[in-house]
């Protein structure tokens, strides 16, 4: 009985998770994340639990909230309902989801990556940014978990579960549009019209209620901020073509020359200019190796496009965290591919 259990239980992954748990603890901080978003999400959760709906209860007018996504507040409301009103329970969930993300990476790439899988998993568990966000009550880790879950289900051909994950991810973070776009463009390239229509229509039905709500209560605030020249200096007016180019160049420099390297390896951004292109080259190479390679590549590219267009004042390495495992995977294949190419040259 005991031996049978050991045979089915992967000791290596269990040891890896145990190591990850220790690393998370060593980087842990019991303080609530003081960046602002968590407080909004908790107050929105309190609003939901008090039966007021999705309202900014901190505001004297208590208007309907038209900025935050409903995903995190709903998760927090559920946790608070079950375990009581304390933010530490959210932290605990983040730790569990970070461990769950490692398990999903293992399950998704086990067949594709062979021995390279352990490079990916070790890079992921030793990532300082992942360890940092494993203790924050923010939406990055839940979103990443749902993104990976959607890919996991898709790989196992559980398409309805994939669609459900896509819809959930959109309600956690708006940038899920990149993931949805990746699946739809994939089917378009494949000329798989049946799946394109099923995925497209289902996603549309799934995201329509929240989108309509946003429109009814004054339009999508995030679109408005995206189009503003500066979200903290509204007198500056709307963005023009030259501003857009400047914004893209500014964001490109930061993501490709500073933040990228720091998210993929613990280099504080050192060698970012080398690491980011290598990661993208690696993702291109991975397309040929795996059926999910195309989806991942499209997702990463669309995600980066959104990040390049976003407000420069909000440019931050945190927006790369949700694609960081894929960039790590890209780095592995980019590194080996480039070394092989150089060897062949000489």
């Amino acid at each position: 009985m005991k031996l049978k259990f050991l045979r089915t239980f992967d000791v290596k992954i269990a040891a890896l998770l145990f190591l990850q748990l220790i690393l998370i603890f060593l980087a842990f901080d019991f303080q609530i994340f003081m960046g602002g978003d968590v407080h909004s999400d908790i107050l929105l959760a309190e609003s939901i639990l008090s039966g007021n709906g999705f309202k900014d209860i901190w505001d004297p007018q208590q208007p309907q909230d038209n900025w935050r996504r409903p995903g995190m507040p709903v998760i927090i409301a559920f946790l608070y309902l079950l375990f009581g009103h304390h933010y530490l329970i959210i932290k605990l969930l983040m730790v569990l989801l970070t461990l769950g993300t490692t398990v999903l990476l293992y399950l998704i790439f086990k067949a594709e990556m062979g021995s390279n899988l352990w490079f990916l998993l070790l890079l992921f568990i030793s990532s300082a940014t992942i360890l940092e966000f494993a203790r924050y009550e923010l939406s990055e880790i839940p979103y990443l978990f749902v993104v990976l879950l959607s890919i996991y289900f898709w790989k196992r051909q559980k398409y309805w579960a994939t669609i459900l994950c896509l819809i959930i991810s959109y309600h956690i973070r708006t940038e899920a549009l990149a993931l949805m776009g990746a699946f739809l463009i994939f089917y378009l390239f494949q000329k798989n019209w049946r799946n394109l229509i099923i995925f497209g229509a289902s996603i549309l039905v799934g995201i329509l209620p929240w989108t309509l709500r946003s429109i009814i209560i004054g339009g999508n605030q995030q679109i408005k901020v995206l189009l503003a020249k500066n979200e903290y200096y509204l007198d500056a007016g709307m963005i023009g073509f030259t501003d857009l180019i400047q914004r893209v160049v500014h964001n490109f420099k930061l993501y490709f020359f500073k933040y990228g390297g720091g998210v993929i390896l613990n280099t504080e951004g050192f060698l970012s200019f080398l690491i980011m292109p290598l990661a993208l080259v690696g993702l291109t190479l991975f397309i040929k190796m795996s059926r999910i390679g195309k989806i991942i590549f499209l997702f990463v590219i669309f995600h980066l496009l959104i990040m390049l267009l976003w407000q420069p004042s909000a440019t931050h390495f945190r927006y790369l965290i949700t694609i960081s495992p894929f960039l790590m995977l890209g780095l592995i294949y980019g590194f080996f591919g480039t070394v092989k190419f150089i060897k062949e040259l000489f």
Partner: protein
Amino acid sequence: MRKIFWLVIILNFILLIPRFKANLSILKRNLAGEIRASNRMELNELLNAFDWLKRQKERRAIREDAVVVCRQPQFCYYYSGFRSINFPFTENQDVVFNALIQRDLIIAENTEPLCILYLNKVVFDSVKYFQLLYRTGGNPPILGIFAVKKDEVAKLLQAQQ
């Protein structure tokens, strides 16, 4: 080739050590019950100001329905229980002033760029209409809580009509 990548992985782990070392004292203080150990001094001063507001509310020194203007309205409500709004993000001082006098309390922070850029100038240029209730140490103080002098504002509005 694979050996090089193993070295990269090992280096990645080694680079975590200084971070863990820096976090160790915070972790120890956390476990000893000092939950705000990792906060910057300015942030702890802001949280202390919210605690002060909460105490004033509990002893009814400030009306329960008073509205606070500050940089982080969610923080204010979460920690003090007072409803709160942002000041307008504009350099038009009249717009900011008109927004302030409609409310009851203002938190002006001297270390925060948004406050320095849009709020503080208006408060300090119109001291006649704002009364300092609470201030932190330091010169200039890290932050101050001001009450809107409703009687002075009423006189001003009357004069304008």
